[in-house]
């Protein structure tokens, strides 16, 4: 197996995928670079929507060019996610940002919301690009390169809405059975997912709350410094010291603002992405269970001679392969996902700690230099008083 070639015929055996994982994070092997930027508002007679510019740079042979620029809207991202889930039901597809703001907004398109969404969409596409299997998905390539009309016509192909609805109904029906016969390792996985989901949701709430409290602290602190300036207007002997205190408080205020934005950049989006991931994971478990349920129902049919006994063994054979593939794909992707999760969480919290350290260091320097200047002043005055 030549590890350094990136042929479009990606082998799907777990072994090669694991080997792929080892080289994944080395920068010189990355050959697909995607950015999402420039949100633009479009107004038609029917609706208003936002498109985002997507720039792709690549050295891969299967791409017609080395650079692409397209515009996509949220609906298009949803379509892509759906196609990926369809093609790889037991792979952990990266989550999309929510359709609507959680707390319910008056204005659908306020700037913060758009920016948060843009960053999340950027993350989404890059995660797909970094995934050893998903990166070679055909729909992904079309998403990145096709012009608007090409994408529309491509979207119209493939299973329609009704058949997808039918799939969902079957999935719900058979998912119950799948849970009963779930292998041990997937039981463990499911337990982990449930607990993880609880914890990450709590951490998400706590982190959002911290941001809110820091913002409110900042708002009050902004008022605090100027009062000292006001005071200095009526105190001729204390003018300097009061002004110095005011400027120290203002500097701490700026440091607080920086800490807040650091939290918003480094921690909140990461934690929130994993909240969405935990929902995604539960969906993956269900799909795996459903695939197994299909097999189980055929096996049951064979056992109780319910349907056509001749065709069943062949069908069962195919389904057994399908189950094995699905399980292996999930197992490998699960390991990869866990590793990434640990790294991402670790990095996010380390960054948060770093932001706090930096914040306190800045404030410390501010007050220490104030104290030094006061001490110097005092020494000056003392030496002046001496005969």
């Amino acid at each position: 197996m030549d590890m350094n070639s990136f042929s479009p015929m990606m082998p799907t055996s777990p072994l090669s995928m694991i080997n792929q994982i080892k080289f994944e994070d080395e920068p010189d092997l990355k050959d697909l670079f995607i950015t999402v930027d420039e949100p633009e508002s479009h107004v038609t007679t029917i609706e208003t929507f936002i498109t985002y510019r997507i720039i792709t740079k690549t050295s891969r042979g299967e791409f017609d060019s080395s650079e692409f620029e397209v515009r996509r809207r949220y609906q298009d991202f949803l379509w892509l996610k759906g196609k990926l889930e369809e093609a790889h039901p037991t792979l952990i597809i990266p989550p999309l940002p929510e359709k609507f703001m959680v707390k319910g907004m008056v204005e659908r398109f306020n700037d913060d919301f758009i920016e948060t969404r843009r960053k999340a969409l950027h993350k989404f596409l890059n995660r797909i690009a970094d995934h050893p299997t998903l990166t070679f998905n055909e729909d992904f390539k079309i998403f990145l390169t096709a012009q608007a009309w090409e994408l529309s016509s491509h979207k119209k192909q493939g299973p329609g809405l009704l058949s997808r609805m039918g799939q969902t109904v079957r999935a719900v029906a058979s998912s119950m059975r799948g849970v009963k016969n779930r292998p041990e390792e997937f039981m463990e996985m499911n337990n982990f997912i449930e607990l993880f989901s609880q914890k990450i949701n709590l951490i998400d709430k706590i982190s959002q709350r911290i941001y809110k409290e820091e913002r409110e602290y900042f708002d009050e602190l902004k008022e605090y410094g100027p009062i000292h300036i006001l005071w200095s207007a009526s105190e001729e002997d204390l003018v300097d010291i009061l002004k110095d205190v005011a400027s120290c408080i203002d500097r701490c205020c700026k440091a607080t603002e920086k800490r807040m934005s650091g939290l918003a950049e480094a921690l909140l989006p990461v934690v929130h992405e994993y909240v969405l991931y935990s929902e995604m994971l539960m969906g993956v478990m269900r799909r795996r269970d459903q695939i197994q349920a299909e097999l189980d129902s055929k096996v049951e049919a064979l056992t109780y001679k319910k349907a056509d006994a001749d065709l069943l063994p062949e069908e069962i054979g195919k389904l057994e392969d399908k189950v094995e593939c699905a399980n292996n794909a999930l197992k490998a992707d699960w390991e990869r996902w866990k590793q990434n999760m640990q790294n991402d969480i670790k990095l996010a919290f380390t960054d948060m700690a770093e932001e706090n350290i930096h914040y306190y260091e800045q404030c410390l320097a501010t007050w220490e230099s104030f104290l030094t200047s006061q001490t110097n002043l005092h020494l000056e005055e003392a030496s002046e008083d001496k005969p």
Partner: protein
Amino acid sequence: MQETYTAYLIETRSVEHTDGQSVLTDSLWRRYSEFELLRNYLLVYYPHIVVPPLPEKRAEFVWHKLSADNMDPDFVERRRIGLENFLLRIASHPILCRDKIFYLFLTQEGNWKETVNETGFQLKADSRLKALNATFRVKNPDKRFTDLKHYSDELQSVISHLLRVRARVADRLYGVYKVHGNYGRVFSEWSAIEKEMGDGLQSAGHHMDVYASSIDDILEDEEHYADQLKEYLFYAEALRAVCRKHELMQYDLEIAAQDLASKKQQCEELATGTVRTFSLKGMTTKLFGQETPEQREARIKVLEEQINEGEQQLKSKNLEGREFVKNAWADIERFKEQKNRDLKEALISYAVMQISMCKKGIQVWTNAKECFSKM
């Protein structure tokens, strides 16, 4: 029905010069109302002195609903410090420290209240001083006192504002720190399911708990700073009291001078027979007949006596007024120096507190960062 109140133990030590050791000379208990009595007495007998204020009776500018309770041990402790400070200020004042009643406050256990009331100071007290809303139309106030009154108004307004905002800032800071404590619990629960990250999460959670609980001490320290500012908030009131006394004296002086002037005029008119000003007596005499020369002489004599008396009084009032201004201004200068020193010290101690808080923060987050990076 029993009343619960807090009493404070006052121990006086005198320093023996021979060996520098302080000897406990007196020890007794006083409650807040006795401190108030002492201060009211001093206000009456030393109207030209900026009398040190008492700490607040009820907790104000609270940043957390809990500390509004008068029986709260933290509040009681802070009040104790305030009362001690009050006595120390009097003891270090060149004039007040010599007062007999103050000395007895520190030494006479029983009957001190009676002793104070026997001085009859409440009768001496000018009720007009307490009437805060009354204004006196003073024609020639000493400009320095007018300025001082404006200054004390500004001081009161700005310190109140500062204390209010400080309380709000403290409230918010409390919120920030405490929410981090929630991480501790969740990390601990999460660590149970994580094999590799478990230890890191657990110990990081512990540091988050430490961080969250550190705010209590930090804000308690800041409360002492707030108390230092509050003292000067209340000092503004004491300054205003001195200004008011001056206003009253000046007002009485002007009224007396006016009175004297009108009597002199009356006298002159009677003597010369010309009536330049309208007077009811003049009208009635015109209507009902002139008075006899004897009657007129008698009246002039009375007026001359009154004028004499009035002139003496005016002289002594003028003297009193000038003495008051001189002494008051001397104490105000002393007060200004004290205020500048104290406020500078308070602001510096605020900086020291901030530095300590930052150092604690750096330590906790450095520890937490280490735990996170080991995950």
